[in-house]
């Protein structure tokens, strides 16, 4: 069953090499087919494949489901990409080629039970995105693609370095099995060389954090997403970061069993620094892309910190909500910025007709949902996540210090909140009313994300039982 997952991307890969005129229409349909094998996965209880190298557990299923919805949305939006930016059919096909590779990498890394396989998938996904950034032919995009290439590969190399160290630490105790997440989790307390393990974890964590744009790489990611076309940014925030996040989930889960206080101290310091920087960068953001990608970093921090604090439900809910919301917002930037990059004022004015009105309403909702206003799932995930943090703080030895950190974090979130409110008001009520065009494909993508968000609201029970 698991192999079926690879069929749609492989099909896309093959089709993208064919020289058929109508191929462009056909590709989104194939990519939408990704959804079907994912659904079949839910039907089967089979977890381990290929000598335990692959584990399609509940977490992987959930992430795959979320990712497939996101990718369907993104491919839908891709349909009208040419109407907003200059892109020819050849680029289109090449884009899809790398998109297919990206998906294969995604599936491998999400469903990997072996740390090495996870890494291979991640590297594949990362490298294929480099070219996706390059689809935009501007000098800025070229420059950023290089930046991405270099920093991304360093980060990925760090992750591998960490994986090898972890493997080295665990191998004497567990044997060849030490490469598997499941075996590591089960036999973690047999590891004598816990220091080596922690060093390895530090490498992995720094690598993934750099990749997700945490401190001090905040602007790096923002610039890359700014440089890329908006569906690529959507893929970045919706899929690639998710894949890394899942890896972090698995590693952190193991590290937590080994030494919780080290993990928490490390993550909290990192998260505080990141939030501090990100909050103020957001405060100064002047265009939608950077605003959204910085806020993506913010949400990644929150997810990571919820997870290590033991708020698994909150982290997953937040994860899913963010994975739906952020691509939706990135896709809408294509329309919002159709009158120029820095035109925040009045960006949400001048929409006529049914599509326009729907777009107006949905984007308004998304903007408010991303800052955690009810009934957005983010509202609940933040409440539960901070609940978990407070819970953990109460159990810790440094109660007031932890509360100080939590309160500080909340205040930084309030700064972000302020900026978003400002942007929301400005795009809705300021500026002049210029007519803007919304296309059906984007609209359907947004609608899909909206429905997915609503579905999230009724699936609390399911998410609660994932971990």
């Amino acid at each position, binding site marked *: 069953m698991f192999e079926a997952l690879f069929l749609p991307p492989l099909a896309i890969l093959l089709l993208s090499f064919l020289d058929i005129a109508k191929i462009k229409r056909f590709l989104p349909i194939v990519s939408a087919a990704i959804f079907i094998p994912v659904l079949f996965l839910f039907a089967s209880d089979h977890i381990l494949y290929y000598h335990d190298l692959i584990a399609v557990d509940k977490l992987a299923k959930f992430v795959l489901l979320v990712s497939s919805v996101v990718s369907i949305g993104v491919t839908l939006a891709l349909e009208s990409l040419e109407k907003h930016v200059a892109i020819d059919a050849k680029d289109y096909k090449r884009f899809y080629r790398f998109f297919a590779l990206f998906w294969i990498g995604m599936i491998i890394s999400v469903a990997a039970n072996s740390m*090495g396989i996870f890494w291979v998938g991640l590297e*594949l996904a990362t*490298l294929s995105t480099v070219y996706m950034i390059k689809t935009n032919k501007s000098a800025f995009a070229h420059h950023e693609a*290089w930046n991405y290439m270099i920093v991304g590969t360093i980060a990925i190399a760090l992750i591998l370095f960490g994986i*090898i160290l972890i493997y080295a630490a665990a191998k004497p105790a567990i044997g*060849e099995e030490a490469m598997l997440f499941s075996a590591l989790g089960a036999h973690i307390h047999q590891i004598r*060389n816990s220091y080596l393990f922690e060093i390895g974890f530090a490498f992995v964590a720094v690598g993934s954090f750099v990749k997700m744009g945490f401190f001090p790489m905040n602007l790096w990611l923002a610039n890359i997403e700014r440089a890329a076309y908006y569906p690529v940014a959507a893929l970045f925030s919706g899929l690639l970061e998710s894949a890394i996040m899942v890896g972090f989930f698995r590693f952190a889960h193991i590290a937590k069993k080994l030494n919780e206080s080290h993990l928490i101290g490390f993550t909290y310091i990192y998260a505080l620094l990141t939030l501090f920087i990100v909050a103020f960068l957001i405060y100064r953001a002047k265009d939608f892309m950077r605003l959204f990608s910085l806020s993506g970093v913010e949400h990644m921090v929150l997810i990571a910190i919820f997870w290590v604090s033991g708020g698994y439900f909150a982290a997953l809910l937040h994860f899913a909500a963010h994975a739906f919301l952020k691509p939706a917002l990135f896709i809408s930037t294509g329309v919002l910025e159709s009158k120029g990059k820095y035109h925040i004022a009045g960006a949400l004015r001048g929409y006529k007709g049914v599509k326009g009105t729907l777009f107006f309403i949905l984007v308004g909702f998304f903007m408010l949902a991303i800052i955690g206003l009810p009934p957005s799932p983010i509202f609940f995930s933040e409440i539960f996540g901070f609940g978990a943090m407070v819970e953990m703080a109460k159990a810790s030895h440094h109660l007031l210090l932890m509360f100080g950190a939590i309160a500080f974090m909340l205040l930084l979130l309030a700064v972000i909140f302020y900026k978003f409110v400002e942007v929301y008001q400005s795009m809705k009520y300021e500026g002049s009313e210029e007519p803007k065009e919304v296309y059906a494909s984007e609209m359907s993508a947004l609608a899909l994300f909206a429905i997915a968000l609503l579905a999230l609201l009724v699936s609390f029970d399911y998410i609660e039982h994932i971990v």
Partner: protein
Amino acid sequence: MTNFFIGMFLSTLITAMLTTRLYRLIAWYAVNSLFLALAAMSEAVRIQDEAMLISALLTLVLKSALIPYLLKHFAVKFQAERNITPSIKVQYLIILIPAILVFTFYLIDPIIAGAAKNYISLAIASLFLSLVLMIEHRNVFAKVIGFLSLENALFLLAMTATEGMPMLIELGIFVDLLMAVVILNLLFKKEASHV
């Protein structure tokens, strides 16, 4: 014997850091990979691990021959700037390189003693050195060499600390490496080679 090769590996890496010409840098990288492959082979012979032997051979073919060749080819094709002066002064590097080595030994000190303890520290040191190699050059080719050295450091670690990773994963790493080179080609194809 492994010790010797690893020592040579490290010294070639350090020499590469002080190089100021592009083609020579590529050459040093090839030599560096060569010693890595030799170290891997001797280690493989010692522990009699066929998988490691294969990856050592792959290293030999890929990293010390094919990739340097391709890079040279690209450099000629895209007319890269051949004079690459490190942006970090030599005076600093003289302090920095020993400091990195000392630091990694200090870092590794709490690890429970084992045969691989020193190798781990050397691997981490070469990781940092490769990073410095990337930092000190503004030239894209030199940066790529730095990245490839990073890969070598990884391989060194995998080889010495864990007595070889599972074969499948090693192969995966090689595939990704090739993929990276393909991407590089695509990136170079367009315009400027400066970042």
